[in-house]
Protein backbone atom coordinates (compact mmCIF):
# COMPACT_ATOMS: atom_id res chain seq x y z
CA UNK A 1 0.00 0.00 0.00
CA UNK A 2 1.24 3.46 -0.87
CA UNK A 3 1.39 5.60 2.23
CA UNK A 4 0.17 9.13 1.65
CA UNK A 5 2.94 10.21 4.03
CA UNK A 6 5.40 9.55 1.20
CA UNK A 7 3.82 12.56 -0.50
CA UNK A 8 2.90 14.64 2.53
CA UNK A 9 6.40 14.67 3.99
CA UNK A 10 7.34 16.87 6.91
CA UNK A 11 8.71 19.64 4.68
CA UNK A 12 5.49 19.77 2.64
CA UNK A 13 3.33 20.19 5.73
CA UNK A 14 5.77 22.68 7.22
CA UNK A 15 5.96 24.84 4.05
CA UNK A 16 2.19 24.59 3.65
CA UNK A 17 1.63 25.93 7.16
CA UNK A 18 4.41 28.51 7.06
CA UNK A 19 5.07 29.32 3.42
CA UNK A 20 8.22 31.25 2.52
CA UNK A 21 7.96 34.42 0.45
CA UNK A 22 4.19 34.34 0.29
CA UNK A 23 2.40 37.40 -1.05
CA UNK A 24 2.79 39.83 -3.93
CA UNK A 25 5.74 42.12 -4.65
CA UNK A 26 5.01 45.83 -4.95
CA UNK A 27 7.52 46.46 -7.73
CA UNK A 28 8.14 43.23 -9.62
CA UNK A 29 10.11 43.29 -12.85
CA UNK A 30 8.56 39.97 -13.87
CA UNK A 31 5.17 38.42 -13.11
CA UNK A 32 3.05 35.58 -14.34
CA UNK A 33 -0.09 33.73 -13.34
CA UNK A 34 -0.32 29.99 -13.81
CA UNK A 35 -3.41 27.87 -13.49
CA UNK A 36 -4.44 24.29 -13.76
CA UNK A 37 -7.78 24.18 -15.58
CA UNK A 38 -8.36 20.63 -14.41
CA UNK A 39 -8.66 21.59 -10.77
CA UNK A 40 -8.88 25.38 -10.73
CA UNK A 41 -5.60 25.80 -8.85
CA UNK A 42 -3.88 29.10 -9.42
CA UNK A 43 -0.53 30.67 -8.58
CA UNK A 44 0.93 34.13 -9.11
CA UNK A 45 4.71 34.45 -9.21
CA UNK A 46 6.42 37.85 -8.88
CA UNK A 47 10.14 38.42 -9.39
CA UNK A 48 12.43 41.38 -8.99
CA UNK A 49 15.50 40.98 -11.14
CA UNK A 50 18.44 43.36 -10.75
CA UNK A 51 21.36 42.96 -13.13
CA UNK A 52 21.66 39.23 -13.54
CA UNK A 53 20.22 38.28 -10.21
CA UNK A 54 16.79 37.48 -8.79
CA UNK A 55 16.82 39.71 -5.71
CA UNK A 56 13.22 39.13 -4.63
CA UNK A 57 10.74 36.41 -5.41
CA UNK A 58 7.23 35.86 -4.07
CA UNK A 59 4.18 33.77 -4.77
CA UNK A 60 0.50 33.74 -3.99
CA UNK A 61 -1.39 30.52 -4.48
CA UNK A 62 -4.88 29.15 -4.33
CA UNK A 63 -4.37 25.47 -4.41
CA UNK A 64 -3.53 22.26 -2.66
CA UNK A 65 -0.78 21.58 -0.16
CA UNK A 66 1.51 20.18 -2.86
CA UNK A 67 1.11 23.25 -5.08
CA UNK A 68 1.67 25.63 -2.19
CA UNK A 69 4.62 23.80 -0.67
CA UNK A 70 6.27 23.42 -4.05
CA UNK A 71 5.82 27.13 -4.77
CA UNK A 72 7.27 28.03 -1.39
CA UNK A 73 10.21 25.70 -1.98
CA UNK A 74 10.70 27.18 -5.44
CA UNK A 75 11.12 30.68 -4.01
CA UNK A 76 13.82 29.49 -1.62
CA UNK A 77 15.66 27.67 -4.41
CA UNK A 78 15.73 30.46 -6.99
CA UNK A 79 16.24 33.43 -4.66
CA UNK A 80 19.63 34.98 -5.48
CA UNK A 81 20.18 32.98 -8.62
CA UNK A 82 20.38 34.33 -12.14
CA UNK A 83 17.27 34.04 -14.35
CA UNK A 84 19.22 31.57 -16.49
CA UNK A 85 20.00 29.35 -13.49
CA UNK A 86 16.39 29.54 -12.28
CA UNK A 87 15.10 28.44 -15.67
CA UNK A 88 17.60 25.60 -15.81
CA UNK A 89 16.46 24.40 -12.40
CA UNK A 90 12.81 24.46 -13.52
CA UNK A 91 13.69 22.49 -16.64
CA UNK A 92 15.67 20.02 -14.58
CA UNK A 93 12.62 19.43 -12.36
CA UNK A 94 10.40 18.82 -15.38
CA UNK A 95 12.91 16.26 -16.67
CA UNK A 96 13.15 14.53 -13.30
CA UNK A 97 9.37 14.28 -12.97
CA UNK A 98 8.88 12.85 -16.45
CA UNK A 99 7.29 9.40 -16.26
CA UNK A 100 9.89 6.71 -15.70
CA UNK A 101 12.76 8.94 -14.62
CA UNK A 102 14.29 7.61 -11.38
CA UNK A 103 17.37 9.86 -11.26
CA UNK A 104 18.26 11.57 -7.98
CA UNK A 105 19.02 15.22 -7.52
CA UNK A 106 20.41 16.83 -4.43
CA UNK A 107 18.88 20.29 -4.82
CA UNK A 108 15.47 19.07 -5.91
CA UNK A 109 15.28 15.88 -3.83
CA UNK A 110 12.37 17.08 -1.69
CA UNK A 111 10.19 17.68 -4.74
CA UNK A 112 10.63 14.18 -6.09
CA UNK A 113 8.25 12.66 -3.51
CA UNK A 114 5.43 13.36 -5.95
CA UNK A 115 6.78 10.70 -8.31
CA UNK A 116 4.66 7.95 -6.74
CA UNK A 117 1.56 10.11 -7.32
CA UNK A 118 1.48 10.84 -11.07
CA UNK A 119 -1.94 12.51 -10.81
CA UNK A 120 -0.33 15.21 -8.68
CA UNK A 121 2.77 16.03 -10.76
CA UNK A 122 1.13 19.12 -12.20
CA UNK A 123 0.45 20.43 -8.71
CA UNK A 124 4.17 20.21 -7.96
CA UNK A 125 5.30 21.82 -11.22
CA UNK A 126 2.72 24.63 -11.47
CA UNK A 127 4.79 27.27 -9.66
CA UNK A 128 7.88 26.27 -11.65
CA UNK A 129 6.27 26.55 -15.07
CA UNK A 130 4.80 29.87 -13.94
CA UNK A 131 8.29 31.01 -12.92
CA UNK A 132 9.54 30.17 -16.42
CA UNK A 133 6.59 32.07 -17.94
CA UNK A 134 7.37 35.11 -15.80
CA UNK A 135 10.98 35.12 -16.93
CA UNK A 136 9.92 34.75 -20.57
CA UNK A 137 7.63 37.78 -20.43
CA UNK A 138 10.32 40.41 -20.67
CA UNK A 139 12.74 38.73 -23.02
Amino acid at each position, binding site marked *: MTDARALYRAWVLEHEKAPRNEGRLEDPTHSARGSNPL*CGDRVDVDLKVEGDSIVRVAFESR*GCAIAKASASKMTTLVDGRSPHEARALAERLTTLLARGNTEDDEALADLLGVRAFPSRTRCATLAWTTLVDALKESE
Partner: protein
Amino acid sequence: MLEDEFPICKRTVEGKPVAYLDNASTTQKPRAVLDAVDRYYRTSNANVHRGVHTLSVEATEAYEGARARVARYLGAKDAAEIVFTRGTTEAINLVAYGSKVGPGDEVLVTELEHHSNLVPWQQLCLRTGATLRVLPIDDAGDWRLDAIPSLLGPNTKIVAMNHVSNSLGSVNDIATLIAAAREVGAVTVVDGAQRLAHGPVDVSALGCDFYALSGHKMYGPMGIGALYGRDLEALPPWQFGGDMVLTVSFDETTFNDVPHRFEAGTPNVAGAVGLAAAMDFLEAADLVAVANHERALLDYAVEQLSSRVRLIGTPKERSGVVSFAVEGVHPHDVGTILDTHGVAVRAGHHCTQPVMEHFGVPATVRLSVAMYNAAEEIDRLVAGLDDVRGIFG
Protein backbone atom coordinates in the same frame (compact mmCIF):
# COMPACT_ATOMS: atom_id res chain seq x y z
CA MET B 1 -24.76 -10.50 -5.58
CA LEU B 2 -24.77 -7.18 -7.36
CA GLU B 3 -20.98 -7.01 -7.22
CA ASP B 4 -20.88 -10.10 -9.40
CA GLU B 5 -22.82 -8.21 -12.04
CA PHE B 6 -20.07 -5.58 -12.20
CA PRO B 7 -16.74 -7.17 -13.15
CA ILE B 8 -14.72 -4.07 -12.23
CA CYS B 9 -15.84 -4.39 -8.61
CA LYS B 10 -13.28 -7.21 -8.34
CA ARG B 11 -10.53 -4.73 -9.15
CA THR B 12 -8.20 -3.80 -6.31
CA VAL B 13 -6.51 -0.46 -5.68
CA GLU B 14 -3.68 -0.23 -3.18
CA GLY B 15 -4.27 -3.90 -2.37
CA LYS B 16 -7.91 -3.34 -1.43
CA PRO B 17 -11.13 -3.78 -3.37
CA VAL B 18 -11.80 -0.38 -4.87
CA ALA B 19 -14.47 1.61 -3.05
CA TYR B 20 -15.77 3.36 -6.13
CA LEU B 21 -17.60 6.45 -4.92
CA ASP B 22 -17.22 8.53 -8.08
CA ASN B 23 -20.39 7.41 -9.80
CA ALA B 24 -21.60 10.89 -10.67
CA SER B 25 -18.54 11.11 -12.96
CA THR B 26 -19.34 7.80 -14.56
CA THR B 27 -20.90 4.58 -13.34
CA GLN B 28 -19.36 1.17 -13.77
CA LYS B 29 -20.83 -1.16 -16.37
CA PRO B 30 -22.76 -4.34 -15.65
CA ARG B 31 -22.09 -7.58 -17.46
CA ALA B 32 -25.42 -7.21 -19.29
CA VAL B 33 -24.16 -4.01 -20.95
CA LEU B 34 -20.67 -5.34 -21.68
CA ASP B 35 -22.21 -8.47 -23.20
CA ALA B 36 -24.71 -6.56 -25.34
CA VAL B 37 -21.95 -4.37 -26.84
CA ASP B 38 -19.70 -7.39 -27.34
CA ARG B 39 -22.49 -9.46 -28.89
CA TYR B 40 -23.38 -6.67 -31.29
CA TYR B 41 -19.79 -6.45 -32.59
CA ARG B 42 -19.39 -10.23 -32.71
CA THR B 43 -22.64 -11.07 -34.45
CA SER B 44 -24.35 -8.12 -36.16
CA ASN B 45 -21.83 -5.39 -36.87
CA ALA B 46 -22.53 -3.53 -40.10
CA ASN B 47 -23.42 -0.01 -41.10
CA VAL B 48 -27.00 1.08 -40.59
CA HIS B 49 -29.69 2.50 -42.85
CA ARG B 50 -27.91 1.69 -46.07
CA GLY B 51 -27.42 -1.98 -46.82
CA VAL B 52 -29.74 -4.60 -48.17
CA HIS B 53 -27.62 -7.36 -46.71
CA THR B 54 -28.61 -9.29 -43.61
CA LEU B 55 -26.03 -7.85 -41.22
CA SER B 56 -26.97 -4.29 -42.13
CA VAL B 57 -30.62 -5.09 -41.59
CA GLU B 58 -29.81 -6.57 -38.17
CA ALA B 59 -27.65 -3.61 -37.21
CA THR B 60 -30.39 -1.20 -38.26
CA GLU B 61 -32.95 -3.15 -36.25
CA ALA B 62 -30.66 -3.10 -33.22
CA TYR B 63 -30.08 0.64 -33.55
CA GLU B 64 -33.71 1.59 -34.13
CA GLY B 65 -34.77 -0.90 -31.46
CA ALA B 66 -32.49 0.93 -29.04
CA ARG B 67 -34.13 4.22 -30.00
CA ALA B 68 -37.55 2.76 -29.20
CA ARG B 69 -36.15 1.47 -25.89
CA VAL B 70 -34.93 4.93 -24.93
CA ALA B 71 -38.30 6.43 -25.87
CA ARG B 72 -40.09 3.91 -23.65
CA TYR B 73 -37.70 4.50 -20.77
CA LEU B 74 -38.30 8.24 -20.87
CA GLY B 75 -42.05 8.05 -21.40
CA ALA B 76 -41.80 9.64 -24.85
CA LYS B 77 -44.74 9.07 -27.17
CA ASP B 78 -42.71 8.04 -30.20
CA ALA B 79 -39.23 6.77 -31.03
CA ALA B 80 -38.97 9.64 -33.53
CA GLU B 81 -38.72 12.00 -30.55
CA ILE B 82 -35.29 10.55 -29.66
CA VAL B 83 -32.00 11.70 -31.20
CA PHE B 84 -28.85 9.76 -30.37
CA THR B 85 -25.92 11.98 -29.41
CA ARG B 86 -22.49 11.52 -27.87
CA GLY B 87 -23.97 12.50 -24.52
CA THR B 88 -25.76 15.22 -22.61
CA THR B 89 -23.30 17.91 -23.66
CA GLU B 90 -23.81 17.28 -27.36
CA ALA B 91 -27.58 17.06 -26.88
CA ILE B 92 -27.70 20.48 -25.23
CA ASN B 93 -25.39 21.96 -27.84
CA LEU B 94 -27.70 20.66 -30.56
CA VAL B 95 -30.65 22.51 -29.02
CA ALA B 96 -28.65 25.67 -28.32
CA TYR B 97 -27.29 25.71 -31.87
CA GLY B 98 -30.77 25.57 -33.35
CA SER B 99 -32.44 28.02 -30.97
CA LYS B 100 -33.68 31.21 -32.59
CA VAL B 101 -33.31 34.13 -30.20
CA GLY B 102 -32.24 37.72 -30.67
CA PRO B 103 -31.67 41.04 -28.90
CA GLY B 104 -34.29 41.61 -26.22
CA ASP B 105 -34.88 37.88 -25.75
CA GLU B 106 -33.83 36.17 -22.56
CA VAL B 107 -32.43 32.74 -21.76
CA LEU B 108 -32.82 31.59 -18.16
CA VAL B 109 -30.42 29.06 -16.61
CA THR B 110 -29.99 28.18 -12.94
CA GLU B 111 -27.04 28.73 -10.64
CA LEU B 112 -26.75 24.95 -10.23
CA GLU B 113 -25.99 24.15 -13.86
CA HIS B 114 -23.08 22.03 -14.98
CA HIS B 115 -20.92 24.05 -17.39
CA SER B 116 -22.44 21.96 -20.21
CA ASN B 117 -25.87 23.48 -19.56
CA LEU B 118 -24.48 26.98 -19.07
CA VAL B 119 -21.72 27.63 -21.61
CA PRO B 120 -23.79 26.66 -24.72
CA TRP B 121 -26.47 29.18 -23.64
CA GLN B 122 -23.91 31.83 -22.79
CA GLN B 123 -22.40 31.40 -26.24
CA LEU B 124 -25.86 31.53 -27.85
CA CYS B 125 -26.48 34.85 -26.10
CA LEU B 126 -23.09 36.18 -27.24
CA ARG B 127 -23.86 35.20 -30.86
CA THR B 128 -27.37 36.59 -30.94
CA GLY B 129 -27.48 39.50 -28.48
CA ALA B 130 -29.96 37.71 -26.21
CA THR B 131 -29.56 38.13 -22.45
CA LEU B 132 -28.58 35.33 -20.07
CA ARG B 133 -30.37 35.35 -16.72
CA VAL B 134 -29.75 33.12 -13.73
CA LEU B 135 -32.16 31.60 -11.22
CA PRO B 136 -30.25 31.74 -7.91
CA ILE B 137 -29.92 29.04 -5.24
CA ASP B 138 -30.21 29.39 -1.47
CA ASP B 139 -27.50 28.35 0.97
CA ALA B 140 -28.86 24.83 1.17
CA GLY B 141 -28.27 24.43 -2.56
CA ASP B 142 -31.93 24.51 -3.61
CA TRP B 143 -33.39 26.75 -6.29
CA ARG B 144 -34.89 30.02 -5.05
CA LEU B 145 -38.35 29.35 -6.47
CA ASP B 146 -39.50 32.70 -5.05
CA ALA B 147 -37.25 34.41 -7.62
CA ILE B 148 -39.06 32.83 -10.58
CA PRO B 149 -41.65 35.61 -11.07
CA SER B 150 -38.97 38.30 -11.31
CA LEU B 151 -36.91 36.29 -13.81
CA LEU B 152 -39.53 34.82 -16.11
CA GLY B 153 -41.52 37.00 -18.45
CA PRO B 154 -42.70 37.46 -22.01
CA ASN B 155 -39.10 37.94 -23.13
CA THR B 156 -38.00 34.56 -21.79
CA LYS B 157 -37.57 32.26 -24.75
CA ILE B 158 -35.62 29.37 -23.23
CA VAL B 159 -35.33 27.94 -19.71
CA ALA B 160 -32.48 25.45 -19.18
CA MET B 161 -32.28 23.48 -15.93
CA ASN B 162 -30.72 20.39 -14.46
CA HIS B 163 -32.92 17.73 -12.93
CA VAL B 164 -30.35 16.77 -10.27
CA SER B 165 -27.29 18.83 -9.38
CA ASN B 166 -24.05 17.02 -10.14
CA SER B 167 -22.07 18.93 -7.53
CA LEU B 168 -24.54 19.08 -4.60
CA GLY B 169 -27.05 16.31 -5.29
CA SER B 170 -30.06 18.65 -5.08
CA VAL B 171 -33.14 17.15 -6.69
CA ASN B 172 -34.66 20.16 -8.35
CA ASP B 173 -38.33 21.02 -8.54
CA ILE B 174 -38.34 20.91 -12.32
CA ALA B 175 -42.12 20.43 -12.50
CA THR B 176 -42.63 23.91 -11.01
CA LEU B 177 -40.05 25.59 -13.24
CA ILE B 178 -41.31 23.83 -16.37
CA ALA B 179 -44.89 24.87 -15.59
CA ALA B 180 -43.83 28.49 -15.01
CA ALA B 181 -41.79 28.49 -18.22
CA ARG B 182 -44.68 27.08 -20.25
CA GLU B 183 -46.94 29.81 -18.93
CA VAL B 184 -44.76 32.43 -20.60
CA GLY B 185 -44.27 30.30 -23.70
CA ALA B 186 -40.59 29.52 -23.11
CA VAL B 187 -38.93 26.37 -24.43
CA THR B 188 -37.73 24.11 -21.59
CA VAL B 189 -34.50 22.12 -21.73
CA VAL B 190 -33.71 19.63 -18.95
CA ASP B 191 -30.25 18.18 -18.27
CA GLY B 192 -31.11 14.73 -16.96
CA ALA B 193 -27.55 13.37 -16.75
CA GLN B 194 -27.60 12.91 -12.96
CA ARG B 195 -31.16 11.66 -12.72
CA LEU B 196 -31.49 8.54 -14.76
CA ALA B 197 -29.32 6.14 -12.78
CA HIS B 198 -31.32 6.96 -9.67
CA GLY B 199 -34.96 7.36 -10.56
CA PRO B 200 -37.59 7.25 -13.27
CA VAL B 201 -38.51 10.06 -15.62
CA ASP B 202 -41.67 10.63 -17.62
CA VAL B 203 -41.04 13.40 -20.10
CA SER B 204 -44.64 13.41 -21.32
CA ALA B 205 -45.93 13.98 -17.78
CA LEU B 206 -43.25 16.61 -17.10
CA GLY B 207 -44.20 18.48 -20.24
CA CYS B 208 -40.66 19.61 -20.98
CA ASP B 209 -39.63 20.36 -24.56
CA PHE B 210 -36.20 18.71 -24.37
CA TYR B 211 -34.58 16.22 -22.02
CA ALA B 212 -30.92 15.23 -22.38
CA LEU B 213 -29.08 12.20 -20.99
CA SER B 214 -25.71 10.45 -20.99
CA GLY B 215 -25.49 6.66 -21.26
CA HIS B 216 -22.30 6.35 -19.24
CA LYS B 217 -23.83 7.91 -16.13
CA MET B 218 -26.58 5.26 -16.06
CA TYR B 219 -24.52 2.06 -16.38
CA GLY B 220 -24.27 2.33 -20.17
CA PRO B 221 -21.25 2.87 -22.41
CA MET B 222 -19.35 6.12 -22.86
CA GLY B 223 -19.87 8.09 -26.06
CA ILE B 224 -23.61 7.57 -26.31
CA GLY B 225 -26.41 9.77 -25.07
CA ALA B 226 -29.80 10.91 -26.19
CA LEU B 227 -31.97 13.95 -26.64
CA TYR B 228 -35.72 13.76 -26.24
CA GLY B 229 -37.46 16.51 -28.21
CA ARG B 230 -41.21 17.08 -28.15
CA ASP B 231 -41.04 19.02 -31.41
CA LEU B 232 -37.79 18.18 -33.16
CA GLU B 233 -39.16 19.65 -36.39
CA ALA B 234 -38.63 23.09 -34.85
CA LEU B 235 -34.85 22.59 -34.86
CA PRO B 236 -32.72 23.06 -37.97
CA PRO B 237 -30.16 20.38 -38.86
CA TRP B 238 -26.77 21.16 -37.36
CA GLN B 239 -24.23 18.71 -38.72
CA PHE B 240 -24.23 17.78 -42.35
CA GLY B 241 -23.19 14.69 -44.27
CA GLY B 242 -24.36 11.18 -44.90
CA ASP B 243 -27.51 9.65 -43.41
CA MET B 244 -29.08 13.01 -42.58
CA VAL B 245 -30.03 13.75 -46.21
CA LEU B 246 -32.68 12.50 -48.64
CA THR B 247 -31.37 13.83 -51.95
CA VAL B 248 -28.17 15.64 -52.83
CA SER B 249 -27.18 17.48 -55.98
CA PHE B 250 -24.83 20.40 -56.59
CA ASP B 251 -27.85 22.68 -56.66
CA GLU B 252 -29.78 21.47 -53.68
CA THR B 253 -29.91 19.08 -50.75
CA THR B 254 -33.04 17.89 -49.02
CA PHE B 255 -32.89 16.61 -45.49
CA ASN B 256 -34.04 13.37 -43.96
CA ASP B 257 -36.92 13.23 -41.48
CA VAL B 258 -36.47 13.73 -37.76
CA PRO B 259 -34.72 12.34 -35.84
CA HIS B 260 -32.34 11.16 -38.58
CA ARG B 261 -31.56 14.65 -39.82
CA PHE B 262 -29.73 15.25 -36.52
CA GLU B 263 -27.52 12.17 -36.88
CA ALA B 264 -25.03 12.88 -39.64
CA GLY B 265 -22.47 10.18 -40.32
CA THR B 266 -22.18 6.62 -39.06
CA PRO B 267 -23.74 6.51 -35.60
CA ASN B 268 -22.51 4.77 -32.46
CA VAL B 269 -24.63 1.66 -32.94
CA ALA B 270 -22.85 -0.43 -30.30
CA GLY B 271 -23.26 2.46 -27.86
CA ALA B 272 -26.98 2.67 -28.54
CA VAL B 273 -27.30 -1.09 -28.06
CA GLY B 274 -25.37 -0.81 -24.79
CA LEU B 275 -27.56 2.07 -23.62
CA ALA B 276 -30.70 0.03 -24.31
CA ALA B 277 -29.18 -2.86 -22.34
CA ALA B 278 -28.46 -0.48 -19.45
CA MET B 279 -32.11 0.60 -19.42
CA ASP B 280 -33.22 -3.04 -19.38
CA PHE B 281 -30.79 -3.66 -16.54
CA LEU B 282 -32.04 -0.68 -14.52
CA GLU B 283 -35.66 -1.65 -14.89
CA ALA B 284 -34.92 -5.23 -13.92
CA ALA B 285 -33.04 -3.98 -10.86
CA ASP B 286 -36.19 -2.10 -9.79
CA LEU B 287 -35.76 1.67 -9.66
CA VAL B 288 -37.63 1.98 -6.36
CA ALA B 289 -35.36 -0.55 -4.66
CA VAL B 290 -32.29 1.18 -6.11
CA ALA B 291 -33.50 4.58 -4.89
CA ASN B 292 -34.17 3.24 -1.38
CA HIS B 293 -30.76 1.59 -1.14
CA GLU B 294 -29.00 4.73 -2.33
CA ARG B 295 -31.01 6.98 -0.02
CA ALA B 296 -29.98 4.84 2.96
CA LEU B 297 -26.32 5.11 1.89
CA LEU B 298 -26.55 8.88 1.50
CA ASP B 299 -28.29 9.29 4.87
CA TYR B 300 -25.54 7.22 6.48
CA ALA B 301 -22.82 9.23 4.73
CA VAL B 302 -24.39 12.55 5.82
CA GLU B 303 -24.69 11.28 9.39
CA GLN B 304 -21.07 10.11 9.48
CA LEU B 305 -19.68 13.18 7.78
CA SER B 306 -21.57 16.03 9.39
CA SER B 307 -19.51 15.98 12.59
CA ARG B 308 -16.21 15.66 10.71
CA VAL B 309 -16.42 17.98 7.71
CA ARG B 310 -18.34 20.92 6.30
CA LEU B 311 -21.12 19.66 4.08
CA ILE B 312 -21.45 21.76 0.93
CA GLY B 313 -25.12 21.77 0.05
CA THR B 314 -27.86 20.43 2.31
CA PRO B 315 -30.73 20.24 -0.18
CA LYS B 316 -34.30 19.33 0.81
CA GLU B 317 -34.13 16.25 -1.36
CA ARG B 318 -30.79 14.65 -2.18
CA SER B 319 -29.86 12.17 -4.88
CA GLY B 320 -26.59 10.43 -5.60
CA VAL B 321 -24.15 12.97 -4.24
CA VAL B 322 -22.65 14.35 -1.02
CA SER B 323 -20.16 17.22 -1.39
CA PHE B 324 -17.96 18.38 1.45
CA ALA B 325 -14.89 20.35 2.46
CA VAL B 326 -12.33 19.42 5.11
CA GLU B 327 -11.38 22.48 7.14
CA GLY B 328 -7.86 23.62 6.25
CA VAL B 329 -7.17 20.85 3.73
CA HIS B 330 -7.53 21.25 -0.02
CA PRO B 331 -9.92 18.75 -1.68
CA HIS B 332 -7.14 17.39 -3.91
CA ASP B 333 -5.05 16.49 -0.91
CA VAL B 334 -8.08 14.76 0.61
CA GLY B 335 -8.68 12.91 -2.68
CA THR B 336 -5.09 11.67 -2.89
CA ILE B 337 -5.08 10.42 0.70
CA LEU B 338 -8.42 8.65 0.18
CA ASP B 339 -6.97 7.02 -2.95
CA THR B 340 -4.22 5.48 -0.85
CA HIS B 341 -7.06 3.81 1.07
CA GLY B 342 -8.53 2.46 -2.18
CA VAL B 343 -11.38 4.97 -1.99
CA ALA B 344 -12.21 6.74 -5.27
CA VAL B 345 -13.90 10.14 -4.97
CA ARG B 346 -13.90 13.25 -7.11
CA ALA B 347 -12.09 16.33 -5.91
CA GLY B 348 -12.57 19.51 -7.90
CA HIS B 349 -15.13 22.05 -9.03
CA HIS B 350 -17.21 19.39 -10.83
CA CYS B 351 -17.64 21.68 -13.86
CA THR B 352 -19.82 23.95 -11.71
CA GLN B 353 -17.57 26.89 -10.92
CA PRO B 354 -20.54 29.23 -10.17
CA VAL B 355 -21.74 26.78 -7.50
CA MET B 356 -18.27 26.74 -5.92
CA GLU B 357 -18.33 30.54 -6.00
CA HIS B 358 -21.68 30.56 -4.19
CA PHE B 359 -20.27 28.51 -1.33
CA GLY B 360 -16.95 30.34 -1.28
CA VAL B 361 -14.81 27.29 -1.96
CA PRO B 362 -12.50 26.60 -4.93
CA ALA B 363 -13.47 22.94 -4.98
CA THR B 364 -15.11 20.20 -2.95
CA VAL B 365 -14.66 16.51 -2.28
CA ARG B 366 -17.61 14.66 -3.73
CA LEU B 367 -18.73 11.15 -2.97
CA SER B 368 -21.40 9.75 -5.25
CA VAL B 369 -23.12 6.42 -4.93
CA ALA B 370 -24.55 3.78 -7.23
CA MET B 371 -26.62 0.64 -6.70
CA TYR B 372 -23.54 -1.51 -6.00
CA ASN B 373 -22.11 0.59 -3.16
CA ALA B 374 -22.28 -0.52 0.48
CA ALA B 375 -22.16 1.19 3.88
CA GLU B 376 -18.77 -0.45 4.48
CA GLU B 377 -17.36 1.71 1.69
CA ILE B 378 -18.61 4.85 3.45
CA ASP B 379 -16.83 3.56 6.58
CA ARG B 380 -13.60 3.25 4.60
CA LEU B 381 -14.01 6.81 3.37
CA VAL B 382 -14.52 7.99 6.95
CA ALA B 383 -11.39 6.08 8.06
CA GLY B 384 -9.53 7.79 5.22
CA LEU B 385 -10.73 11.17 6.50
CA ASP B 386 -9.34 10.31 9.93
CA ASP B 387 -6.01 9.67 8.18
CA VAL B 388 -6.30 13.12 6.52
CA ARG B 389 -6.62 14.63 10.01
CA GLY B 390 -3.69 12.52 11.17
CA ILE B 391 -1.48 13.90 8.41
CA PHE B 392 -2.62 17.52 8.39
CA GLY B 393 -3.26 17.80 12.12
